[in-house]
């Protein structure tokens, strides 16, 4: 398996050990912060959350932070059901989700904690260096179906997408596929894969595939394309810097949602995440800090 997977296992071990340890060495309340924070949501952000939790617990041994993934929608659902303190989400809450929360007496508060650039990836043998947003839109709608139309071999394009319920899928659809026509859809022939790592694996193995993943998923076995906002504008390679200064055109905000205004230990955690230490961790994991 890949290193990311190993890292994940290691992380889960570290986090669970630290939860146990923190429970063992719990100090009396007057010596510092204590309590628990439950976090659930976006799969894109689950590693990020684990690093934040670990660092925060190291600084505040009286606190235990538990973190789990499942997807942005799962986290938001948990927030509405009241089973999590913070929902991590790689997309904004939908209006019907906000209404459902209000019916249950929960006022969701939104905090942007970072940004993520979405890279469009192809096989390293693909000679195409960059595409503009309009071309990407046509490719993923299935209106450009052959690499010949983009100036390469006469071979059909294999489209790779995430599952329709994934936050990444929804963001890419709303911002690229529906760039011009708000009713446009992904091509029905696009493969729906369960994870970003599966998209990277398929692109690495398939010369004629194209897919999209977060910046942190790009590895040397695949090639990230330069993207231009329009065909006359400069083509920009996705990096932390170009996403941060806004030159790279496909980036999305990463959110925390809390039940009402955060208080107590949840507020401390949020302050930590938005502070310099939390934002540094963001950058270490190839996400983009907001400051």
């Amino acid at each position, binding site marked *: 398996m890949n290193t990311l997977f190993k890292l994940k296992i290691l992380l889960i071990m570290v986090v669970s050990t630290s939860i146990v340890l923190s429970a063992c060495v719990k100090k009396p309340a007057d010596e510092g912060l204590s309590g628990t924070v439950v976090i659930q949501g976006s799969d894109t952000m689950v590693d990020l959350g684990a690093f934040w939790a670990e660092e925060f617990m190291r600084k505040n041994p009286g606190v235990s932070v538990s973190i789990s993934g*499942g*997807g*942005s*929608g*799962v986290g938001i*659902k948990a927030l*509405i059901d009241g089973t999590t303190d913070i929902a991590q989400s790689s997309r904004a809450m*939908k209006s*019907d*989700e906000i209404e*459902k929360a209000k019916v249950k007496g929960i006022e969701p508060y939104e905090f942007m904690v970072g940004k993520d650039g979405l890279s469009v990836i192809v096989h390293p043998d693909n000679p195409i260096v960059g595409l503009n947003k309009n071309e990407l839109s046509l490719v993923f709608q299935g209106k450009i179906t052959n690499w010949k139309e983009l100036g390469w071999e006469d*071979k*059909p*394009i*294999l489209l790779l997408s995430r*599952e*329709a*319920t*994934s936050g990444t*899928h*929804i963001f890419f*659809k709303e911002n690229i596929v529906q760039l011009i026509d708000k009713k446009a*859809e*992904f091509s*029905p*022939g*696009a*493969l*729906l*894969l*369960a994870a970003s790592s599966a998209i990277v694996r*398929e692109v690495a*193995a*398939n010369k*004629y*595939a194209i897919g999209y993943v977060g910046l942190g998923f790009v590895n040397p076995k695949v090639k990230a394309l330069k993207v231009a906002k329009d065909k006359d504008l400069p083509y920009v390679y996705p990096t932390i810097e170009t996403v941060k200064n806004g030159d790279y055109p496909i980036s999305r905000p990463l959110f925390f949602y809390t039940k009402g205004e955060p208080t107590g230990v949840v507020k401390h955690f949020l302050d930590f995440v938005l502070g310099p230490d939390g934002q540094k961790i963001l950058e270490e994991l190839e996400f983009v800090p907001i400051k």
Partner: protein
Amino acid sequence: MKLKEKVIVKLIFIAGYSAIFFSLAIFYYILKESLPFFQLYSLGEFITGNQWYPVSEPPKFGILPLLSGSFIVALFASLITIPTGLIVAVYISEIAPLWVRSFLKSSLEILVGIPTVILGVVALYTLVPFLRNLFNIPTGLTALAGVLMLSLMAIPTMASLSEDSLSSIAPSLKANSLALGATRWQTIRYILIPSARSGIIAAALLSLGRVIGETMVVLMITGNAPQVMFSLLKPVRVLTATIGAEMGEAVFGSAHYHVLFTLGLVLLIISTIINITSYFLLGRKK
């Protein structure tokens, strides 16, 4: 002593009837969760729609892409499974030497027990790239990959159950046939297979049920592209994989949540039809 016996009889009674209770309870629950869907979405568009975009605004819940995917995969998997499984069963019960027989029978049973997710992972790294190179197609994640893996899973079920019914035929029948001068092939073809007919049909329908109900393998290797088409070399999305992949993130109480139960209801109806068919096929023989 008598009390103990009574308790045991009652327990057996409860165990027997609980099966009926749970089937009905599951059916009721699925029905209850799927009916609200038709207040949110039109039945006609559901049945005739050829687009599946569950999270779009407005969403499109056409069942045809999923139904065609399930249909093509189940059809070809049964076309491979049923004859192959029967041949294996005949070989094991009638042709193979005794030591091969017990060895083959136990290997089949081991094959039945392999968790499907493991078969899926193995296929992902071996069968899928192989198919892509063999047919020179854009991706190996196709209906064909699903068909081949499902056959591999269902053949042992088919073979093992058919073998059971072939070997339960009275030995005198076979002996009489051979004594009358029939060849071994004639005995198998005209005496043994017809005598075991009901068992073989039951085995075939159980294998078909396994093929239609399987989720993990098809989710992993059929590519999951919800499109209406009837080609083995294209990616497809099947009913079970749709429920498996989307249930986790469907907003509770939304049309999307309810439609996934409706897909479950469709699956339940299909398996009920299979069971009723087998009931009539087997009943006619008696």
